[in-house]
């Protein structure tokens, strides 16, 4: 029955398509709310265009943060969303008396997988092949894009449905497919909002965390009609209405699709099973309806045994959405004859992961199970959101993973390890106990060492001088004394304007003046008086 339905859908697809793209142009031109830049870009495209600037050329973190901090709506949306999800996490985690043991078990299990990643990957490959799947290896983004494009083209289709997947975002698959004339439709509600909004995800779990309901409603009304089933004119901003609208819009795409793309939350080496954990059921649709399933996954997603799922399936839902159990957990092992996709491909992507693995300290970042707890708890992320991080991985994990994956080359990547006040809240919630502040420090050190290799900077000189002072109590005492002397000229306890870099401090707050008499001297006087 499914097949019959699919074939009718397929037969009407082509005319519908050409008709739609014509309609798309017209409506787009008349859509007053849609800004001109995007309309121009969208013309001739199959899917909504993302923002024009490539991620890698984003501003360094502090400058991007400065811009984003101005957006009061964004800050309000983020604050509301992060605080809600934070407290949900907190309460469900508190229900498990053995939470800390679970975290340790999660960390140990992922470490075990990473320590012998090569043999687990081979085991995974062998088991996948044995179960009828085809395995492809991609060393970088370009290779992964090529593999997926060829596979899709081999089936003569120009449209695929997608389950939300971080690695496909990382390798910018959608745009690569678009360039080849293939439309990749996001089917996760939040990803759909992002895609239709000509936007980028700002969170790995809740990609549209920066949007509120009214914005979502507006996007649906404006964009859905350009790419398929239109949103009803009387669409409400009520979450249920919005979800129903998205479901309606996606339904025809699900039924038409011959090929689906997915990621994987876990890849079980000893059985060759891939696992997807989701909430909306769109994943289940993608994994079961189409004929061909292409799963793209980072090589660090491997876990040794099926029993290990016991740990991560407890850790992940509670840490991410704050649920005791996620609504849908799908597992598939290669091809099951007569049931679900009859052609299954698995693309194993490196794209910098081996480089991360080579760093004995930095590799802890590969334990990440992408729960987003670290970003939801982060006071920095809470204020600027994900777009400031110039990568698909924002928040504390982004600050340690992105520069490692990309190799600490750009100014942006060098600024990421500094995008934290080191408050440590992230490490406290991470379900696999990634010591995020330690990793941030480690990367800061790598940044400094790299800069040092090239030239003697001002900061480095200053640090060296202060370091020399701090090498001796006598020298530091002298500095304290000099600092006290400033009180002869400035009698106030606070100063409101500092010169040069100090401006960055006094832009927002006053600076306390040093004490007239340092403790060191006071102590000496006291000892003298005692005698």
């Amino acid at each position, binding site marked *: 029955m499914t097949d019959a339905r699919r074939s009718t859908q397929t037969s009407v697809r082509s005319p519908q398509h050409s008709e739609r793209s014509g309609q798309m142009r017209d409506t787009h031109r008349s859509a007053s709310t849609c800004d001109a830049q995007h309309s121009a870009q969208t013309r001739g495209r199959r899917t909504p265009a993302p923002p024009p600037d490539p991620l890698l050329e984003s501003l360094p973190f502090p400058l991007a943060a400065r811009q984003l901090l101005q957006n009061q709506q964004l800050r309000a949306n983020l604050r509301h969303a992060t605080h809600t999800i934070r407290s949900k996490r907190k309460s469900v985690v508190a229900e498990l008396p053995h939470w800390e043991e679970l975290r340790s078990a999660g960390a140990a299990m992922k470490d075990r997988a990473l320590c012998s990643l090569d043999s687990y990957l081979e085991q995974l490959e062998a088991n996948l092949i044995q179960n009828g799947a085809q395995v492809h290896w991609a060393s970088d983004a370009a290779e992964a894009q090529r593999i997926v494009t060829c596979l899709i083209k081999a089936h003569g289709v120009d449209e695929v449905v997608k389950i939300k997947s971080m690695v496909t975002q990382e390798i910018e698959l959608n745009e690569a497919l678009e360039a080849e004339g293939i439309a990749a439709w996001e089917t996760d509600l939040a990803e759909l909002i992002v895609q239709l909004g000509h936007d980028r995800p700002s969170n790995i779990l809740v990609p549209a965390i920066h949007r509120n309901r009214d914005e979502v409603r507006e996007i649906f009304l404006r964009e859905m009609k350009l790419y398929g089933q239109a949103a009803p004119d009387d669409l409400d901003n009520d979450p249920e209405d919005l979800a129903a609208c998205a479901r309606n819009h996606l339904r025809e795409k699900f039924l038409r699709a011959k090929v689906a793309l997915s990621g994987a939350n876990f890849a079980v080496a000893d059985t060759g099973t891939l696992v997807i954990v989701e909430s909306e059921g769109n994943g289940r649709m993608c994994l079961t309806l189409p004929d061909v399933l292409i799963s793209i996954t980072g090589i660090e997603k491997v876990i040794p045994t099926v029993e290990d799922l016991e740990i991560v399936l407890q850790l992940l839902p509670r840490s991410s959405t704050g649920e005791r159990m996620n609504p849908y957990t799908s597992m598939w092992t290669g091809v099951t004859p007569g049931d679900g996709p009859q052609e299954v491909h698995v693309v194993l992507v490196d794209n910098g992961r081996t480089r991360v693995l080579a760093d004995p300290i930095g590799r802890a970042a590969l334990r990440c199970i992408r729960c987003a707890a670290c970003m939801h708890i982060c*006071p920095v992320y809470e204020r600027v959101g994900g777009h400031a991080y110039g990568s698909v991985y924002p928040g504390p994990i982004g600050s340690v993973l992105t520069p490692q994956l990309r190799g600490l080359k750009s100014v942006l990547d060098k600024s990421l390890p500094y995008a934290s006040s080191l408050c440590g809240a992230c490490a406290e919630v991470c379900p696999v106990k990634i010591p995020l502040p330690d990793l941030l420090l480690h990367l800061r050190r790598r940044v400094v060492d790299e800069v040092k290799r090239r030239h003697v900077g001002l900061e480095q000189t200053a640090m060296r001088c*202060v370091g020399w002072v701090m090498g001796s109590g006598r020298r530091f005492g002298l500095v304290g004394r000099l*600092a006290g002397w400033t009180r002869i000229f400035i009698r106030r306890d606070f100063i409101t304007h500092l010169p040069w870099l100090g401006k960055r*401090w006094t832009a927002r*707050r006053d600076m306390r003046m*040093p*004490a007239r008499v340092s403790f060191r001297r006071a102590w000496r006087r006291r000892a003298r008086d005692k005698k």
Partner: protein
Amino acid sequence: MTANIQKKVALFATCINDVMFPDTCMATVRLLERLGCRVCFPPQQTCCGQMFTNTGYFNEAIASVRACASAFEPYEYVVGPSGSCVGSLREQHPLLAELSGDTALQQTVKAVVDKTYELTEFLVDVLGIEDVGAYFPHTVVFHQSCHSLRVARLGDRPRRLMEKVRGLTLLPLEADDQCCGFGGTFSVKNPDLSAAMVSEKARCVAKSGAEYLVTVDNACLMNIGGALHRDGIAVRTIHLAEILCSQECERDEPHVCHPQPNRALLTHNKGEKDGRVGGGAP
């Protein structure tokens, strides 16, 4: 209390307290002496080196590690009135010593780490005292600094000590576990974010209606206090050591009742001359 006589304690003043907040160090000394300890100040000490380590300058921090190790080695206990600096000494110094490749330093550092305590830890865990006989008739809010919570892991010790202070009323502080946005060089490397964070903290403090904002880390006080001062919010800042040191006397200013008031030291918490801050005492 007298049972603790002869506990020989080296004061780890920390650089910021030494130069900016000598009152805190003096209060720590007086408090410990009042509880029967013999306090010394080894003058070779400088700072914990966090400013270097946390900015990525690991090698530059090693000189501070050496200074601390040689200063504190001879003592039975090392006590510092700062969660952040004590945390750094305990968590970062062993790593830095290892990095230096100097095995003797590594051993000294290990020995020092094992006997280093934050003030509230020393009071509660080593001396076994929660009621230090303090009197502070004011309303306060407590900002649990991130490093005292997550690096030094002081837990509820500061609160337990505060609960036993006569006259003190501890008011709730909204979002009390949120970072104040100081973060060392973070405040100059990411000035806009740091400003946004401290603004929110200052707003919560102002909303609390307390007379004093208390922490166990003066670096946070320097940050939040600077914002309060800028905004003209009449909440005064004070380190917990100074509260624990103050005792009952005719006037309820914290420093007046010290056995040997040192006028030169009374620079900060006196009430400001420009009248924007202060006047909190009833």
